[in-house]
């Protein structure tokens, strides 16, 4: 079960995850509040009539980008969680541990509270840009605190991240208190996290931060294996520990900030999925990271299916579903361990 140090076993495990993710990915767009006729879609896509039926339009312009978004965000959160649990040596670490979730939320809530501010720049809306700005401030602050002569202190990083998170969760009610009450619903709704996008624009907004962030993290698998043996042992083995930790912090922050700016805070995915993957595939981070990406993506897409069908024709914020499904599942996992 834990033999993953050979290439063939690694490829086999990766293919299984890929296959499972692909199944979810292909089926998910067909499920939703409106039932879609597959025959109609095939006729639209293969025929030469230029105007598509409503079914095809819903599928292509709403369901597919939404599934893609959910997949990328869920995958990113799970990878960030896996990496943080290793570098912070803490099984409770999650993307929100870095403080980016809180700092981004403060930015977004500020943007929502000032409606005159609404603008957009490229694929970004003002709320997204403010969320990113908030994350940026948080990131700088944490980096300054945790930086030391050689690399960063992981202990300070953990404490600073958690503190920023707590601080932000105090600032948000303050902003709400000061804001125009009309905006409260929009703020609350944003804070619940959701994948309700309208098209491909939000997807484009993911690319500058989330994609490079996740890419950099996925390359750290081998190095992270060594870091699980302790920083000094890793150093002795020849790993540039300071660089790996700095990259992990920066890339993890980028990916989290990117995800939060678009879908809001979504909890539990980044905490639970890494544990599940380690249960299934062992501790080799070279499989844990891509496995977490594929499984995290699939998990969030599945949660989103529930979110948009359970109370159809309206929908529920996906953050509620991840927590309600994830929490008990995690407890079950812990009970089984005993």
């Amino acid at each position, binding site marked *: 079960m*834990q*033999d993953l*140090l*050979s*290439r063939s076993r*690694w490829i086999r495990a990766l293919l299984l995850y890929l296959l499972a993710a692909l199944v979810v990915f292909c089926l998910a767009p067909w499920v939703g509040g409106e039932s879609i006729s597959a025959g109609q879609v095939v006729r639209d896509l293969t025929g030469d009539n230029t105007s598509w039926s409503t079914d095809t339009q819903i599928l292509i312009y709403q369901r597919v980008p939404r599934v893609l978004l959910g997949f990328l965000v869920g995958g990113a959160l799970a990878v960030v969680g896996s990496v943080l649990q*290793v570098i912070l*040596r803490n099984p409770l670490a999650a993307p929100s541990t870095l403080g980016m979730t809180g700092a981004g939320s403060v930015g977004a809530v500020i943007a929502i509270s000032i409606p005159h501010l609404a603008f957009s720049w490229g694929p970004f809306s003002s709320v997204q840009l403010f969320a990113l700005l908030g994350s940026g401030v948080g990131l700088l602050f944490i980096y300054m605190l945790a930086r030391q*002569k*050689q690399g960063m202190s992981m202990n300070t990083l953990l404490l600073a991240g958690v503190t920023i998170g707590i601080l932000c969760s105090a600032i948000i009610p303050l902003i709400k208190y000061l804001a125009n009450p009309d905006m409260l619903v929009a703020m609350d709704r944003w804070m619940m996290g959701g994948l309700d996008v309208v098209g491909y624009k939000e997807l484009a907004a993911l690319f500058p931060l989330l994609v490079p962030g996740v890419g950099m993290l996925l390359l750290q*698998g*081998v190095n992270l*294996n*060594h870091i*699980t*043996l*302790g920083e*000094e*042992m890793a*150093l*002795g*083995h*020849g*790993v*540039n*520990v300071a660089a790996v930790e700095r990259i992990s912090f920066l890339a993890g922050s980028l990916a989290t900030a990117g995800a939060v700016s678009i879908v809001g805070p979504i909890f539990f995915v980044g905490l639970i999925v890494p544990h599940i993957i*380690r249960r299934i595939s062992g*501790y*080799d981070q*070279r499989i844990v990271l891509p496995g977490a990406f594929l499984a995290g993506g699939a998990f969030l897409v599945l949660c989103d299916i529930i979110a948009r069908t359970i109370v159809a024709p309206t929908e529920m914020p996906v953050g509620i579903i991840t927590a309600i499904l994830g929490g008990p599942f995690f407890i079950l996992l812990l009970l089984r361990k005993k």
Partner: protein
Amino acid sequence: MLGIIGPNGSGKSTLLKIAAGVLAPLSGKILLGKDNIKSQPRRKIAGQLGYLPQNTSSMFDYRVEEVVALGRYPYLSGMGFLQKEDWQIVERCLEQTEIKIYRDRPISQLSGGERQRVWLASILAQEPQVLLLDEPTTGLDLHHQVAFFGLLEELAQDGMAIGVVTHDLNLAGQYCRELMLLRSGEKIISGLVGEVIQDDILAEVYQESLYVGRHPVNGKPIVLPVKK
């Protein structure tokens, strides 16, 4: 084999960390071969120098074989998969440290002494010429202490330069060729075992009256406490 000895807080571990390039010296430099260790990439250092930190523990429950295989890092690139030759070296290290029978066991199921051998095997897989160990036998029973130092002696005989920090003056006296005695960050004396283990020197450094005698079997120096 060089033993680094001295009371608690005398700077033994710090000296070893600086020698291993884990800590940067406040002044001066460490040469590995002909080059300053600071200017060399970690990977290159690891191919020449093995360092076993104090109290090593793993976050995850890897199998013995996997931990040893991780030692091949300096020679791997990309995703870090081991080639056939790498596995042969892992095999050799497992044999050398006599942990081959445990190779498929999770490390959590081993005793402290066995686990210490796993870490050593993992470092030997780096094929270093220099080995630095920080209190490798602290907390082990007599059998494991003797077995571990016996293994180090073999490695030293095969031409490896070994520096070991230890509290156990008797073990150091039995196995090391030379000793370096430290007190509050300064070297008091270094030299052959017999030159360092002398009652007046030790009594002064440890602030304790000690009995220094000869081992009845092999004549090497031994140190015993004296009750006041």
